[in-house]
């Protein structure tokens, strides 16, 4: 195994640390409609208030998977000048530890657990925690896995969803 990269980076102390807490703006029927159009899910409960009232949730809701976008991407709204050349404003799931960007990051996977849908008119709050950190020796060197758990709640404090995001970090190659 050799020397632990996690130890060297000194990141283990951040396990369990809260990394995000943010409340978004009110979700509009328009946000839901446009999202449903983008993913080509034309179920009338996402478009038509009356159909939605008759439907499973008794009101206009977003597709369940919308929840992870319900607060926007915190830090994502930047001017063109402030954006990186690749257009990337931020990387959800990459923690703000010291030396984070000395490593290269890719997305590993994610898990969404649903409890309630987002309704038009809701205001969603997210809180994030680092819940797991591990490392292993991959084919081309060390790999670090960092898993964050984001919990989404509505304005009544009801849990809408839990979202686990695993990011994989590898030391950058010298070029």
């Amino acid at each position, binding site marked *: 195994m050799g020397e632990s990269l996690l130890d060297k980076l000194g990141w283990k102390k951040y396990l369990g640390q809260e990394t995000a807490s943010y409340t978004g703006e009110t979700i509009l029927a328009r946000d839901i409609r*446009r999202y449903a159009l983008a993913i*080509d899910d034309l*179920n009338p409960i996402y478009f038509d208030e009356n159909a939605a009232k008759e439907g499973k949730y008794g009101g206009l809701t977003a597709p369940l*998977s919308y929840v992870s976008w319900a607060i*926007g991407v915190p830090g*994502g709204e930047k001017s063109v000048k402030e954006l990186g050349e690749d*257009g990337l*404003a931020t990387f959800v799931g990459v923690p703000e530890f010291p030396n984070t960007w000395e490593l290269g990051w890719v997305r590993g996977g994610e898990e969404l657990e649903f409890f309630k849908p987002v309704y038009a008119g809701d205001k969603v709050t997210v809180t994030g925690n680092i819940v797991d950190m591990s490392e292993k020796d991959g084919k081309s060197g060390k790999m670090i896995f960092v898993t964050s758990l984001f919990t989404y709640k509505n304005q009544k404090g009801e849990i809408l969803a839990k979202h686990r995001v695993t990011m994989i970090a590898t030391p950058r190659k010298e070029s």
Partner: protein
Amino acid sequence: MNNQVFYEDVVEGQELPPFEKRVTTVNILMYLSTVWLMDRIHFDHPFATQRRGLPNVVAPGNMAVDYYTQFLTEWAGEKGNLRKVSIQFRSFMLPGDTLTCRGKIIRKYIEEGKGCLELELSLKNPSAINCVPGKAVVELPMR
């Protein structure tokens, strides 16, 4: 509405009817604008191909979660619930691709009086590459 499927009607090993989604550059543009993502690999063809070595612009990986969500909520019906979806990013979804979502019931169990299914998921592109394998838990009503 489709006929409601019940917990008693399904068996372990059973496959769900496949579900197809076609992703286009217009879908990608709609998605990027609505969630406000400006990552150039999703819309700037010269950047994606020449600078990043990708075969084309690529769909945001999260769209796979949306496709699985639609696939499973429609299958589970009004009285069923999609409880959980997990995915791993393996390969890019490209515009013009028709993506086929499949699900296989790998376990049936009752939890707190509710009928639950564990599913193994695949999302394959036209070259039969499983771009975003996944798993899910779906709850079905009991008779």
